[in-house]
């Protein structure tokens, strides 16, 4: 992810339920980034965010929300502290 950038991807929840997003790793390690979830749209890049947090990588989900069935988006964004080389992020999205 580039400085000042966002990185979102879409996923489909096949039923209503909980979505858990975990930022598992960053390179450089322990980089503070934003983590968010929403619906595909045009207000913020490609994803209109519903909920977001600032977090560092860990093993437990940093963001959990309830969703209806449908298409959603989740991802990371720079909260202002990235170096010129950016950051490599790895996150997982567990959904129905």
């Amino acid at each position, binding site marked *: 992810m580039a400085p000042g950038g*966002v990185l979102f991807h879409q996923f489909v929840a096949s039923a*209503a339920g909980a*979505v858990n997003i975990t930022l598992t790793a960053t390179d450089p390690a322990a980089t503070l980034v*934003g983590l*968010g*979830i*929403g*619906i*595909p*749209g*045009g*207000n*913020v*890049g490609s*994803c*209109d*965010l*519903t*909920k*977001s947090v*600032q977090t560092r990588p860990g093993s437990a989900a940093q963001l959990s*929300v*309830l*969703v*209806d069935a*449908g*298409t*959603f988006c989740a991802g990371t*964004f720079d*909260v202002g502290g990235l170096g010129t080389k950016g950051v490599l992020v790895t996150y997982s999205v567990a959904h129905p």
Partner: protein
Amino acid sequence: MKSIRMIALAASVAAASACGGSNTTPTTPSVTVGPTTELFESTLAPRGAAFFSFTVAQTGDTDVMLASVSTSTAPAATTSVVVGLGVGTPIGSDCSTTKVMQATAALTSPLVVNMTPGIYCVRVFDLGNLTSTVNFAVRIVHT
């Protein structure tokens, strides 16, 4: 005698089929309309309102989700401010709501309304909680 009657009946049915079944009544094919998802994105000013019209083609539930409210286009600008959310029918240059509620951004649908075919609208309005203009996104799933 019974077996003769059965043979006669079978011959009669076979003859009718061979003639193309001209005694059958034509039926109008039914068309099932799948759910349609629409996205209503706009801005909401303090004391303001915005609405979006959509057409329901077939009787069924309409789900209305206030999916996003943010104070700017920056990704970290999400807010949990409470706004008004309603459904109704378009009238003039506004939306006459028949069902309203208070809502915060969430990915579940707080408004589920069974609708017959027609034109309806979703209205988002300030309840007095806004101090500046916000961006919002509403997802509408209808038949």
